[in-house]
C-alpha cells in the first residue's frame, strides 16, 4: 500500500503533467542560453555594434568640428567687422579734417584777397589824389604866369601911352612880389 502510493506520487511528479517549481533549473536551458547569447553577442558585435558605434563617433566628431569651425568663422567675422568699423571711423575723421582744412584755407584766402584789394583801392585813390594835386599845382603856376604876362602886356600898353616902359615894369614886378604867394 505504502509502496504503491509512493510510486504513484513519484510517477505523477515526474510525469510532466504535474506542476513544477519556477525555481527548477533545467541544464538544457542553461546550455541553450549560453549558446544563443554568445552567438548573438558575437554576431551583433561584429556586424552591428562596430559599424554603428563607429559611425556615431565619426558623426559626433564631424559635428564637433563643424561647430568649432563655425565658432572660429564667427569670431573672425566679428573681428573683421570691428576692423571695418574702425577703418570707417578713421576715414570719416580724415575726411572731416580735410574739409575743415579746406574751409580754413578758403577763409584765409578770402581775407587775404579782400585785404589786398582794399589796399590796392586805397593806393589807387591816393595816387589819383596826388595826381590831382600835382595837376592843380601845375595849372595854378601856368595861370599865374599867364596872369602875369597878361598884366604885363596890359601895363605895357597903358604905360606906352603914359610912361616909360621900364619904370612901369618895375612897379608891376614890385606889385606882383607883394601879392600873396597863392
Amino acid at each position, binding site marked *: *500500500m*505504502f509502496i504503491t*502510493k*509512493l510510486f*504513484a*506520487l513519484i510517477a*505523477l*511528479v515526474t*510525469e*510532466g*503533467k*504535474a*506542476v*513544477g517549481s*519556477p*525555481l*527548477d*533549473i*533545467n*541544464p*538544457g*536551458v*542553461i*546550455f*541553450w*542560453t*549560453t549558446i*544563443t*547569447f*554568445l*552567438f*548573438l*553577442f558575437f*554576431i*551583433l*558585435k561584429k*556586424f*552591428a*555594434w*562596430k*559599424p*554603428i*558605434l563607429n*559611425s*556615431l563617433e*565619426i*558623426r559626433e566628431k*564631424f559635428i564637433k568640428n563643424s561647430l568649432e569651425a563655425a565658432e572660429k568663422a564667427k569670431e573672425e567675422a566679428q573681428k573683421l567687422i570691428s576692423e571695418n568699423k574702425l577703418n570707417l571711423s578713421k576715414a570719416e575723421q580724415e575726411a572731416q579734417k580735410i574739409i575743415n582744412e579746406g574751409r580754413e584755407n578758403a577763409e584765409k584766402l578770402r581775407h587775404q584777397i579782400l585785404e589786398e584789394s582794399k589796399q590796392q583801392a586805397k593806393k589807387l585813390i591816393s595816387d589819383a589824389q596826388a595826381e590831382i594835386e600835382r595837376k592843380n599845382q601845375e595849372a595854378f603856376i601856368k595861370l599865374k604866369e599867364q596872369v602875369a604876362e597878361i598884366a604885363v602886356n596890359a601895363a605895357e600898353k597903358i604905360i606906352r601911352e603914359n610912361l616909360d616902359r621900364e619904370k612901369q615894369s618895375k612897379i608891376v614886378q614890385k606889385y606882383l612880389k607883394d601879392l600873396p604867394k597863392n
Partner: protein
Amino acid sequence: MNFELLNKSADTVQANSQGGGESSWIMHHILDSRELDLSPFGIIHLPEIHLFGMDISITKHVVFMWLAALILIIVFLKTARTYKKSLVPKGFSNLFEIVVIFVRDEIAKPTIGSGYEKFLPYLLSVFFFILTCNLLGLVPYGSTATSNIAVTATLATISFLFIQIGGMMKNGILGYFKGLVPHGVPLWLLPIMAVVEILGLFTKPFALAVRLFANMTAGHIVILALIGLIFILHTYFVAPVSVSFALFIYLLELLVALIQAYIFTMLSSLFIGMALHQEH
C-alpha cells in the same frame, strides 16, 4: 504517520493534475515546457535532444530566446546598413540609435569611465537581449524567457565573467585580488575581509539573476491571477475589475520590462566599473 502524510499529498497532487487545482494553470503559463501551446490552433511538440547524456531538449523558453536573437540580428544588421549610406539615419534606425546612445552615454560612460569602449558591445547585447525577451513575454502566445531562472542565472554568470576578466585584465590577476580588500584594513581583519569580499563577488551576479527572474515572473503571475478570479469566483461581475486591473498590471509590465533590462545592464556596467577602477 508518514504513511498518512504521503497518502494525503498523493491525493492532492492527483487532484491538481486532474484539473481540479485552481492554480496549476497559472504555473502552466509561467513555467517552461516542451511544447508551444498555440491552442486553439494546436500544440507544437518540440524535439528532444540528448547530447553526452545531457538533456538539451528545445523548450518554449529556448524558442523564444532564439526568436529574440533573430529579431535583434535582423533589426540591428539593417540599422548598421543604413549607416553605410549616410551618417544621418532615417526612420527606424533613429529609434534604435537613440537607445544605443542611451546605453553608451547614460549607462556605460558614467559607470565604467575610461575604457568603457571594450565592454560596450556586451552591455548593448545584454540590454537588447533582455529587453526583447521581456517584451516577447507580453505578446499573445509569447513566453518570457527571462522568467526562467536558468536563463537569468546564465546571463548573470556571463556578466560575472566579464566583470572578473575585465578586472583581471586591467589590474593583473594578483593586483585584482589585492585590490578587492580596501586599503587601511588592520592585519588581523584581513582573513575575514578577504572572505567577505570574495563572497561579495558572487552575491552580485546572484542578485542580478534573482532580481530579473523574480520581476519577470511576478508580473505575469499577478495578471493571470487577476484573470483567474473570474473563473475561481464563477461570476462575470468580477470581470470588469479583473480586466481593468490586469490591463493596469500589463502596462506596468511594459515598464518593468524596460526597467529590468536597464537595471541588469546598469548594474553589470557598475560592477565592471568597480572591478576596473578599484581605488574608488
